[in-house]
């Protein structure tokens, strides 16, 4: 089967826009179908967020497996895929992280062409501010590590930062800017479009995307997965991939095992739209604040996580207050902005702040979770590595280090120490 993402909808192009303009846009087809589930699939993927859809896409494209259902309890891309701050970067410290995140960034660079769907990837440059002496040392170390990993990053001085970003106040006093880790290839993309583009391509390959279909139980026999019981009936499968972020522990319990995951709320907020003033993505990790300006002109601000288990998709007020208070010192102009919206997502945190792509104690059940606060940037790379794992039953080079066995073996990929914060 061909992996053409345009079957069923026609190719999107400037000519298609001109043609549709002539007939008052009556000819656009639905980008993906909404079928009822079949009785059996070769692979069932739980979770139609970015990671689930990307896994399905690369299963079809790289491994020729298209007998796939992607089932979703809510709506497509309505979880963390639609709730993040859309930051894309690959400047990680550990080799295993750099490999999978840089694979992801490289796939993002060509993703609009690959999917024939404009994901509005904007490699505008990403700057992580060092605001303590510890961060200066930590980020310099990351720059050196990145050079060994063939990930282009550089250390920039406060003066250069002020040139790049005139709205910044580098003088402190409480959080002076002492320098920064700059990745020119980093940036943002339109988060919904990533999910929609993958969904259209999966649907074109003949995969079934089944929304508002909640998994209620996982059926196993002799240590192997048999089927999932859902609100739309029983669906048999040869292989099951659980890619459900904050709900991973709930699904794992249905299958009879536990994960080293805790679910907590992470929040973001956007301001009223203003004229272009910030053409970089800024991460201020000491104060847990992330800032970028959307194409609509809104300042998109991400904050820190709550410390306690939470499934409510609402976070604590004081975290917003802390984030905004700290950012206002570094970006005084923010103090005059009204905030329009605030929302929360439930992120799946592992102890070492690195993801899990792994086989499980149950045969033919695979998990992809633990991306915590930094999953959006990883969507294509995660899908690529997960498809390899599901298709072959064993992880490929990208996923090998991220198995569940690393906890028993004490072989952590410790990005919490490396970055000092959530990602």
């Amino acid at each position, binding site marked *: 089967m061909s992996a053409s993402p345009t079957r069923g909808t026609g190719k999107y192009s400037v000519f298609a826009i001109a043609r549709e303009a002539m007939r008052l846009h009556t000819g656009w087809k639905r980008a993906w179908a909404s079928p009822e589930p079949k009785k059996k699939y070769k692979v069932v993927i739980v979770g139609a967020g970015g990671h689930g859809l990307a896994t399905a896409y690369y299963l079809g494209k790289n491994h020729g497996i298209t007998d796939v259902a992607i089932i979703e309890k809510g709506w497509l891309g309505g979880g963390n895929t639609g709730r993040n701050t859309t930051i894309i970067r690959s400047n990680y410290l550990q080799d295993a992280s750099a490999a999978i995140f840089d694979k992801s960034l490289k796939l993002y660079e060509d993703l609009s062409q690959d999917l024939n769907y404009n994901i509005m990837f904007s490699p505008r440059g990403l700057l992580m501010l060092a605001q303590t002496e510890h961060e200066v040392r930590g980020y310099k170390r990351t720059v050196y590590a990145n050079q060994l990993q063939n990930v282009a990053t550089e250390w920039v001085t406060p003066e250069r930062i002020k040139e790049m970003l005139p709205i910044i106040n580098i003088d402190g006093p409480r959080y002076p800017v002492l320098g920064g880790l700059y990745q020119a290839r980093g940036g943002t993309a339109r988060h919904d479009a990533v999910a929609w583009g993958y969904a259209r391509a999966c649907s074109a390959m003949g995969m079934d995307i089944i929304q508002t279909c909640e998994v209620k139980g996982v059926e196993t026999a002799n240590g192997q997965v048999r089927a999932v019981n859902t609100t739309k009936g029983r669906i048999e499968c040869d292989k099951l991939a659980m890619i459900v972020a904050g709900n991973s*522990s*709930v699904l794992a*319990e249905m299958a009879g095992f536990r*994960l080293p995951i805790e679910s907590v709320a992470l929040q973001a907020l956007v301001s009223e739209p203003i004229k272009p003033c910030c053409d970089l993505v800024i991460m201020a990790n000491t104060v847990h604040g992330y800032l970028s300006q959307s194409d609509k002109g809104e300042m998109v601000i991400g904050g820190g996580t709550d410390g*306690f*288990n*939470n499934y*409510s998709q609402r976070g604590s*007020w004081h975290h917003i207050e802390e984030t905004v208070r700290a950012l206002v010192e570094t970006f005084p102009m923010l103090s005059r902005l009204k905030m329009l919206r605030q929302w929360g997502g439930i992120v799946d945190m592992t102890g070492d702040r690195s993801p899990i792509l792994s086989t499980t104690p149950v045969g033919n059940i695979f998990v992809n979770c633990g991306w915590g606060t930094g999953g959006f940037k990883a969507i294509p790379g995660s899908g690529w590595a997960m498809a390899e794992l599901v298709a072959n039953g064993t992880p490929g080079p990208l996923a090998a280090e991220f198995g569940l066995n690393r906890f028993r073996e004490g072989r952590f990929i410790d990005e919490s120490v490396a970055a000092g914060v959530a990602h």
Partner: protein
Amino acid sequence: MLTLTCPYCGIRAEETELAPGGEAHLKRFGPGASDEDFEGYLFARKNPRGVHFERWRHAYGCGKWFLAARDTVTLEVYGTYRAQTPFPTPEIVAAIQARHPDWTPDFDATSPTPTSTPEGLIQ
């Protein structure tokens, strides 16, 4: 904002005054335990969608650790109790069952358990 009553000093503390400490009532496994048990104790967590028993510290108050029963979906608090309590108390179980009649404890509160009142502990 989340508010918990500290069972030691009786203060109704809001969350900026408290430090969360993760799942409560973990069974410790140490030297001599199997790798599987030790891994489970260190890393595996229930992380339930619903009733959760957890540790908190009244960090900017009396400084003591205590336990709380809380719902991770509605954020409702069913009650707090002292850290030396080996299982959630009958009052806590009753409070949970008043809200969720189908909920049954996954622990056996009648079984003998080691008490955790070493000498010198300030009660």
